[in-house]
Each structure stands twice: as C-alpha cells, then as structure tokens.
C-alpha cells in the first residue's frame, strides 16, 4: 500500500445512509494532500419561511412542525414561543410544564432512534438495525419499547408526536388526563432498567478516538438543564438574549457550496447534545451525572463522536425529569384552562428550543394577526461548518487507510452529529460535477 504522502483518494458518497435527509460526502486527496472535503446538502429546498409568510399566526405551528418528522414537536414549540413572544402571551405554569414534558418525549424518541437504529449498527458491525432483529432481538425490542413510551408521552400531551395536534398559542386544545399521566409515570419508572441497559451497552462499545476543540453553543437557564427559552450561551464565554440570535448564528455563504454555514467566535461552532452537556452539565439529574461519569464524559468533551454518548446521558436525564415533571403536574392536578390570549395583534418575536440535534430558532414578525416575515435557523445548518472542519482534520489523519475505511469513519462522523437534513430550510441543492 502506498504511504499516505503518495496517496490519491477520491470518495463520493451519494445519499448518506442512516441519516435523516439527503447529503453527499466528497473527498479528494492528491498525493496525500487533501484538496476537497465537502458535505454537500442535496435536499430539495422547501422554502418554509416563504410559506409561513401570509399565514394567520394560529396556523404557524401546524405548518412549522411539517419542517421535520423527528423534530416536529420542537419546531411546533419554537414556533409557538415566537408567536407568544411577538404578541405578548403569558403562558400558565401548567402550559409550560406540559410543553416541557412534550419536549422531553421528543428528545427521548429521537435520541433512542439515533443511538439504537442509526449509530449502533456501525458500532456492532452491521448495516442496519434489521439484522440485529435476528442476532440481538432483545436489543431491538428494547429500542422499540423505549421509543413507544417516548412517542406516547407526546401522544398523551399533544395528540401525536408527528405532527402535534393539541398545542396552540397560549395553551392546549386538549389536555392529558390524570390517568394518562399516572400511566406514563409508571411506565417511565419501569423503563429505568431499559435505560440502564442502554448505558451499559454504550459502556461496552468503542467510539473512534478523535478530538477537536471548537466553540459549543446551547440554551442555558439558571434553574434547569435547558430545552426551552433561556439564553444563548457559549463555551467560549458570553451569553445572549434570544432576540440577539442573529449575532450568534451569522449565516453566511461559502465559496464551494451554496449551503449556508454559521460561525461565531471561531470558524465554526457545534450545537446538539454534546454542546448542551458541555454548557449545562451542572444541571444534570444525579442519575444522568453518574451515567456521564460511567461513559467518560468530562468537564469539556471535544470528541464529536461522543455527541452520541451525550445523547445517552440525555436519555437518562429526560426519563428522570419526565417523572419529576409529571409528579409536579399531578400535585397541582390537571385543570381545564382557556389558552392565554395575545395582548396585541402585531409584533416581532423569537422562540428558541433545543431540538434533539441542537438549538432551533423561529423568528416571526406579525402584522394584524398575519405573519409578514419569518426566519428559521436550524440546528443542523449551524453544524455544517463544524462537520466540515472536523472532516478536514480527520481525513488527513486517516488517509493511509483503505477507501472503505475512510468512508466509514467519515460517515460515522456525520452520523454522530445526528443531522436532520430536511430540517435545514436554509440549504440549497448543489449541482455536483
């Protein structure tokens, strides 16, 4: 085999598998020098911001959830928060608790899908979860069982995970019953053994050893591990109120690709579970803290492959926090409430939530109850520059391996970010030569 300083490598991965949405990876190295290393987004552009324009504000969350099947609840919630901030709506504590429980359900649903069905196959040497159904059925059944509970959390709270039905500006059109919440509480306590088994499984798996320090960004709050509202916070220091999100996201065009990238205090930044962990770890539930220790997540972890590990820790955290949240709701009893009303019919507002894969912003301007302008900044779009920066360091270090091995390592890197490509409303098709 030629030494890496002589190697010519050409890798074209068309339509990455086991990721949500359509992306290609192109790697070109000549005589051991990396000339091109691109993640190209080839998802058909869907133009959601243009479609939100002209919509009555009441419909916004129902359209917004259709941006993505996995992050439907997060899109709907961020959309509602944007409208509520624009029109001065004060949600009741019950509404906020239910919204949070709904987000926990989606985080669980998405993370379980990702760790078991999208990432684990690579670590177990198979092409998908389907052969595991024969070779390790208890693992697959566990994943389906956990995922069903997560889906039911959202189903009971808002009618359906994909796509939510019962959430509206200021509240809910339909509330879960106390019996349903008690049922969830029991099942969540039962699922603890499945959660423990998940942590054990990941303790036994080996992730690639790759470090690259970058800026990590997530929402942060003083009183809890933040998934909704809060302030935008950076590991490089500083925090920003949501209204100033554009100062952080700075979307820009890059020469080689018509997909927009984001950068803040460095060339790129990362959002998602690892970023949330790095910024919010002091707010982890004690059980999640133990899991983080068992899985070697330190004070600041800079191995992007460990984004999946951080997701496992968030599975632990969200199960425990769901139990706490349900107990708080049951203590007060579920009360029928009219949705809180807007205090004005025009205004601008930003709503932000942590989607499973990172910070999501919806920003609307509303004039006389109609959305006149909309901007959505998607977590995966914010990660694109960071993924490429990682690839540019990773690929030269593994150029001496076979093309298949290089492809697999790079695909695993992209998968670790859990990209949600069809969410990326700001990305464009690239005509690739």
């Amino acid at each position, binding site marked *: 085999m030629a030494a890496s300083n002589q190697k010519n490598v050409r890798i074209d991965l068309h339509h990455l598998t086991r990721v949500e949405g359509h992306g290609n990876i192109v790697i070109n190295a000549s005589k051991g020098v990396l000339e091109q290393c691109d993640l190209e987004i080839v998802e058909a552009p869907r133009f959601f911001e243009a479609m939100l324009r002209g919509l009555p504000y009441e*419909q916004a969350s129902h359209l917004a959830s259709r941006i993505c099947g996995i992050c439907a609840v997060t899109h709907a919630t961020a959309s509602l928060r944007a409208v509520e901030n624009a029109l001065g709506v004060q949600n009741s504590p019950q509404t906020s608790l239910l919204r949070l429980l709904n987000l926990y359900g989606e985080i669980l649903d998405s993370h379980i*899908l990702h760790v078991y069905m999208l990432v684990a196959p690579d670590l177990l040497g198979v092409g998908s979860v*389907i052969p595991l159904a024969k070779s390790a059925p208890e693992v697959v059944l566990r994943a389906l069982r956990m995922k069903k509970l997560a889906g039911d959390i959202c189903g009971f709270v808002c009618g359906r995970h994909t796509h939510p039905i019962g959430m509206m500006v200021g509240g809910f*059109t339909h509330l879960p019953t106390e019996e349903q919440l008690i049922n969830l509480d029991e099942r969540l306590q039962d699922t603890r053994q499945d959660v423990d088994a998940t942590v054990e499984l990941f303790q036994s798996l080996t992730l690639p050893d790759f470090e690259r320090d970058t800026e990590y960004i997530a929402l942060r709050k003083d009183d809890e591990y933040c998934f909704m509202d809060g302030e935008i916070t950076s590991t490089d220091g500083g925090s920003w109120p949501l209204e100033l999100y554009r100062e952080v996201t700075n979307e820009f*065009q890059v020469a080689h690709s*018509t997909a927009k990238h984001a950068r803040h205090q460095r060339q790129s930044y990362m959002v998602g579970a690892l970023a949330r962990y790095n910024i919010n770890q002091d707010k982890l539930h004690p059980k999640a803290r133990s899991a983080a220790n068992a899985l070697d997540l330190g004070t600041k972890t800079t191995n992007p492959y460990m984004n999946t590990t951080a997701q496992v820790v968030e599975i632990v955290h969200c199960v425990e926090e769901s139990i706490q949240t349900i107990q708080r709701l049951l203590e007060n009893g579920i009360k029928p409430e009219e949705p809180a009303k807007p205090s004005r019919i025009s205004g601008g507002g930003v709503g932000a939530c942590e989607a499973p894969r990172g910070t999501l912003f919806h920003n609307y301007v509303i004039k006389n109850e109609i959305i006149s302008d909309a901007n959505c900044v998607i977590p995966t779009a914010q990660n694109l520059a960071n993924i490429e920066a990682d690839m540019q360091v990773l690929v030269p270090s593994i150029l001496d391996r076979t093309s298949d091995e290089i492809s697999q390592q790079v695909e695993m890197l992209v998968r670790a970010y859990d990209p949600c490509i069809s969410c990326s409303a700001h990305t*464009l098709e690239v005509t690739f030569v």
Partner: protein
Amino acid sequence: MKSTDKPKVAFFDFAGCEGCQLTVIDSLQNHPALLDAVDIVQFREAMSEKGDDYKIAFVEGSCTRPADENRLKTIREQAQIVIALGACAHLGGVNALRNWQSQAEVQRYVYGRMAVSQDSYPARPIEAVIPIDGFVPGCPIDREEFVQIAKMLLQGRQLRIPDYPVCVECKLKENECVFNYGKACLGPITRAGCGAICPSNGVGCDGCRGPISTPNMEGMKIALAEHGIDEDVFIKQIKLFQSYQLIHDKRDVHGSQ
C-alpha cells in the same frame, strides 16, 4: 413460506419531512412481525444496504424539481407496485403552499441576494409525474392504516380505504362537534380512516387526507354559514394541504371544476 417468497420492498423519499417513514418504523412497535413478511431492500434512512430489485415501492414526499422526475420514472420502471406514502406524495401537501407565489419571489425571500437559479419548480404530487397503484393518505400517515394497506398488498387484495367523511368516525367516537366552538372543520368533506384524530383533540380537521370522491360542498357551505364561520377561514384551512389541487387542478374551493 420460503424466504424467496417474500416480496422485495423499498422506501424512497423526495421533498418531505420523513415523518411518514418514521411512522412506518413506529408501526413496528405493535406489529414487529411485519418485518418477517417482507424483504426490505432499500430504506436509506434506516439501512446502509441498497438493492435495486424491489417489487413494491413506497414513495414519500413531493416532486419539486426536474431531477426528481427522472428518479420517479426509474422507480416506476422497476417496481410492480408504486404507493404514494403520505400527503406530500399523494396530494402535494404543505410543499405546494409556495405554489401561490412565483418561484422567483420565493427564492429571493429565502435566499436573498444569494439567490441563484435553482433546480426547483412548483411542488406536485408524484401522480403528476408517474401513474401510481395506490396511496396511504394523511400528514402523517396513520400507522394502523399503513399496516392494513401493507397486508392488503401482501395478500394481493384490492386496496380499500374509507370513502366516507371524517364526520362518521367523529360521531362514532361521540365527540362534540368542533363547529359548536366556532372552529372550521373540513371533516364533512375529508376522507376518514384517521379516527377523526384532530377533532378528538379539539381542533378542526385540516383535510390532510384529501377529499372523499363526492364531497358535499353545498352542505359544507351551509354548515360554515350556520356557525358564523367566514368562508375565508375555510379557504385558509384547505390551502394547507390542498393548494396543489386548488391551483393546478383548477378546482375552485366550492369543488366544481
């Protein structure tokens, strides 16, 4: 049954949110045996292996650019049975909301000064490009209905899904009619099969499953008028999932052509 008897199945996605494919994955929670009845040769979101000898193709998402047409034609040539999966593929769905604006304006608004001429045109259902053998309606699909349709396909039976309005299922559930709360509901003209899930959660039906074959538009207008609901509200509701039909089929909102 020998494994060679298992029909080969593939899943494809175009412009959509992949929520319908996720619902397919979730349908396995209650029907894990479905995996044993088929040989999935291609399902990009869930597996790395890729086979091109499929007999049944489920297609999610709308056609939104010329390149999609070639992909659809390839799928049509290969598959014996092509099923549109979900509202985007079946009707055009929410993707067609942008068809009311000019392509140039939409691109300018989203991409600003950086707008380049993109390979993108008004969104359309896949049936606008290739003939299909059936559809699984809804946004997203209903997982139990998907399983029923899968069974019908595997048994070689004719596909039968309800052709009566959502109202029937709503009444069977003894829901109070949301019209009584002043909410516009497309239930009277929309295809049942979803268990009237939206009215059961306190919101009006938004027509994501498409109209029944003989929608009673006169009755619909009377119901709206009797409850003081402006026709404008009704039109905005129907635009969410049926913009393609309103614009391209030149069907007016009153159902006549």
